[in-house]
């Protein structure tokens, strides 16, 4: 009898994630909550106030107002920097998601970003073209460069059966070293030890725009990121191409028997994925930074894998998951200066969120089991 009661209590505790229709949303939200609780415990153990810390985190990200601002700064400027940092993450996560849908694992987003960012920098960034031509050209170069590099990966897989994980890892290293060589030889800024800054006209972030007593950075790519996310959703859910890509991803052999061309769809998915990574690259290197640090692959390409998965590889989900991850990332500096907690705790929180959301399938399974038992219990009682 007692056991029965326990079960029904457990069942009742699970009420927020019981509805299967909402599970794609409720399970990530639940895992986010659980990881914040876990982080709160860690912060408590360090002898700090977790609520204070989380509050600072949101203040730093421009979601909540800070107590004081430097000249020309406000919550709005902080929020715009958040969007600025979020833009490449959205593109990169979309790149991972499209490849995942085709059953491919694009671990080379970082390399594709670097290659396209570098090409856009040397072709457009130093050209002195007018903004009206330069900015679209940057996007185009980024998309084409990334798409070609992704396409190469798909082609090698299709033609020579080379595993995409190996190719992308190799290309990551090759891009990293070759580009480092060219930067050191031709484009180095001797003071910053990075590539020379690109012209303002080619930048995808408008820096220090003065509006009503505020100086803000306006990320032009952000709107585009949202539009592209919606387009990708449309492509995957409503078009033949999207259907075929997903069919190849869920079962290659079945797709082959139904007459879908597995090879060309593999290449196509990688071209799209690479193109998106290229957009991530140009919004990253030609947006906020305007310069490239040689021999460094951004960790963003790897984080995006996790962000895509947190968003269920769903374009709209990705917008939300990258928003959340960017908040934690951006807010961490302010949090560490205000609450005296090390900045690295932010990445630990992110890691925990991802860890708990990876258990999603298990939670789903457990909940449906509990549900069945609950029905049985009710049957036996009546």
């Amino acid at each position, binding site marked *: 009898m007692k056991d029965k009661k326990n079960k029904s209590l457990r069942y009742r505790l699970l009420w927020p994630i019981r509805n299967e229709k909402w599970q794609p949303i409720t399970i990530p939200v639940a895992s986010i909550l659980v990881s914040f609780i876990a982080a709160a415990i860690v912060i408590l153990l360090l002898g700090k106030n977790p609520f204070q810390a989380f509050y600072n985190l949101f203040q730093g990200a421009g979601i909540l107002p800070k107590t004081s601002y430097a000249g020309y700064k406000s919550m709005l400027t902080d929020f715009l920097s958040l969007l600025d940092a979020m833009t490449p993450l959205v593109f990169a996560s979309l790149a991972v998601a499209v490849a995942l849908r085709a059953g491919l694992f694009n671990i080379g987003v970082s390399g594709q970003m670097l290659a396209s960012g570098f090409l856009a920098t040397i072709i457009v960034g130093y050209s002195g073209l007018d903004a009206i031509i330069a900015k679209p050209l940057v996007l185009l170069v980024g998309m084409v460069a990334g798409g070609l590099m992704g396409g190469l990966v798909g082609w090698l897989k299709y033609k020579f059966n080379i595993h995409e994980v190996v190719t992308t890892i*190799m290309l990551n290293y090759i891009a990293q*070293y070759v580009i480092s060589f060219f930067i050191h030889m031709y484009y180095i800024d001797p003071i910053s030890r990075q590539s020379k800054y690109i012209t303002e006209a080619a930048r995808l972030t408008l820096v220090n725009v003065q509006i009503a007593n505020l100086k803000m950075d306006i990320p032009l790519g952000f709107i585009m990121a949202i539009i592209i996310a919606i387009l990708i959703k449309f492509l995957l859910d409503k078009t033949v191409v999207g259907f075929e890509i997903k069919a190849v991803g869920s079962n290659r052999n079945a797709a082959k028997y139904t007459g879908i061309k597995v090879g060309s769809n593999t290449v196509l998915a990688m071209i799209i994925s690479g193109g998106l990574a290229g957009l991530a690259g140009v919004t990253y290197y030609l947006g906020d930074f305007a310069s490239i640090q040689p021999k460094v692959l951004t960790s963003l390409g790897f984080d995006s894998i996790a962000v895509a998965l947190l968003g269920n590889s769903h374009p709209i989900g990705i917008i939300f998951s990258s928003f959340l991850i960017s908040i934690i990332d951006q807010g961490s500096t302010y949090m560490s200066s205000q609450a005296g907690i090390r900045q690295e705790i932010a990445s630990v929180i992110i890691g925990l969120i991802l*860890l708990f959301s*990876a258990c999603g399938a*298990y939670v789903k399974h457990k909940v449906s089991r509990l549900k069945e038992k609950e029905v049985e219990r009710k049957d036996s009682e009546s």
Partner: protein
Amino acid sequence: MDTILIDGLSFALPLFIMAIGGIYSEKSGITNLALEGFQGFGAFIGALSAVLIANASGAAIEDMFYVALLFAMIGGMGFSVIHAVLSIKFKANQVISGVVINILALALTTFLTTQINALVFGAASDKFRLGVSERFTIDALANIPVIGAVFTNVYPFQVIIIVIAIFAWYVLYKTKFGLRLRASGENPQSVDAAGVSVSRIRFSAVLISGLLSGLAGMCFAYSISAQFSSGIYMGYGFLAIAALIFGNWRILPTLAACLLFGFAKSGGMYIAQAMALPSSFTDLFMILPYVVTLLLLIFFSKSNRAPRALGEIYDKGKR
């Protein structure tokens, strides 16, 4: 010429032992992208215990090598429990689990390193200094031309790795456990029908990969980098995965792939130095191992085949 062999071997062997761990895990049917995280976390635990014990006992940190190695193996194995539990018990997607573990390992170890440095040593540092482990030369054999270099300036861990690798080869191909492990990755139903628990075999395979990765991570920390910091996450775990796929999930071809990486890496460095080019040119020679790999793969990967049940969650009811 000798330096190519010496440096190449000391890089290739840790890579090889990590790849063997990967082979164990993937042969049992568990995709393992978490090698990078395992080796980093293992090296962290090893370095931490070395630093703490050296601090308490007053011994030199370089002498703590074997202690560190032991703890690194335990640490790597402990951390790999997460991957095993997530992908076997919780039936999570194995790729997701692997990626998450890599991110978590990097975040946790950087956070803990700074935190522990501040708490225990009162220093604002994000690394544990370790130094380089001592090397030895077998005089009798070192004078043989060309292959003598194999016996010159050897790190002790290279010997350990070779012994473990031979043992691992024996277990995987010549024992009942190895047979069952390989069968779990090809046709888990048959293993189950024989009355053996698939989950238990896969669990132990993942733990073995964690143990060997921890060992490899510690070797890197005590040789190339001479310290533990977030710089340990150089992507060698991914390189090991590339090597094992290149080696078609078999131990001996994987050794060849690792040696290729090692020698191409040290060879590229050597050429750049010998030609006395400006330092920027080193970068161009650094791509050598990766380009060679890609080219070779074009010729050799037609027949490559992953274990049939790799990445699939084992479902008893499935036919």
